[in-house]
């Protein structure tokens, strides 16, 4: 418990430093000025998203290889947190685009690809919701997660090839080559900070899933012994049989 509290406090401090750096230490960008500072968290949340989905991919493979439920728990946690980071990226993107370009959305390669990813992994969550048997749920969603993860590079590649044929305004006006050294350092700090937050949330979601599995096993145990799970009374049929 103490360790957990210490880690949370540390991460909170990290976020504070990163935020301060993004808002005040980083130099003002030449054309976009203050609004460009969204970039630090926009890029950081997409980086966190890819990490979360990678965790989900590895966990899915591990589940199919070992059959241990804890990997399935890690898989669903990775996807859920990844979708959340993706949502953040998809919201901060338009919030950046609107004042800079005057439009909320543009079908440029990166945004389109990320939107597709969002849909793809939401489909994973829907799939899990619609399959009832827990073992089937785990193995089928692991297979789907692997297919979806394999699709990620294909989605980005296809959109990039396509968009270079039909040029569009590019949102990411400040990243990549030619980044001012202070900006790079602030970016790294923000990447690290958001990644830590993502890992923290991921671990918590993982714990929740493990607890849920434990509760389900207990419920199953109770039902199979003939106890009424809601008030602990033996069912009448069993009492008669014992007599």
């Amino acid at each position, binding site marked *: 418990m103490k360790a957990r509290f210490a880690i949370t406090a540390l991460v909170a401090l990290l976020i504070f430093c990163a935020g301060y750096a993004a808002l005040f230490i980083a130099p003002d960008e030449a054309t976009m000025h203050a609004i460009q500072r969204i970039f630090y968290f926009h890029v950081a949340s997409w980086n966190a998203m890819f990490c979360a989905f990678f965790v989900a991919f590895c966990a899915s493979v591990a589940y199919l290889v070992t059959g241990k439920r804890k990997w399935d728990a890690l898989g669903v946690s990775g996807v859920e947190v990844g979708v959340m980071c993706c949502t953040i990226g998809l919201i*901060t993107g338009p919030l950046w685009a609107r004042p800079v370009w005057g439009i909320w959305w543009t079908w440029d390669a990166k945004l389109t690809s990320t939107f597709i990813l969002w849909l793809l992994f939401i489909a994973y969550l829907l799939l899990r919701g619609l399959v009832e048997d827990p073992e089937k749920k785990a193995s089928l969603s692991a297979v789907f997660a692997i297919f979806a993860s394999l699709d990620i590079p294909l989605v980005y590649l296809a959109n990039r090839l396509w968009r270079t044929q039909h040029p569009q305004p590019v949102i990411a006006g400040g990243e990549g080559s030619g980044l001012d050294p202070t900006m790079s350092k602030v970016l790294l700090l923000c990447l690290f900070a958001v990644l830590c937050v993502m890992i923290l949330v991921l671990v918590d979601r993982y714990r*929740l899933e493990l607890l849920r599995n434990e509760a389900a096993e207990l419920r199953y145990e109770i039902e199979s012994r003939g106890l009424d799970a809601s008030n602990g009374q033996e069912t009448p049929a069993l009492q008669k049989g014992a007599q």
Partner: protein
Amino acid sequence: MKNFEFLFTAWMVVWAVFFVYEISVARRIAQTREEIERLKQQLQQR
């Protein structure tokens, strides 16, 4: 700062999403822990 509202909203969105999610997960963890305790007691009664 120009366009401050957008920057502020974006900042709020980032942390609000994480924060709300974390709170909901923490709450569900507490609920599930209680349920596990209850179920364990039922098993012990048997």
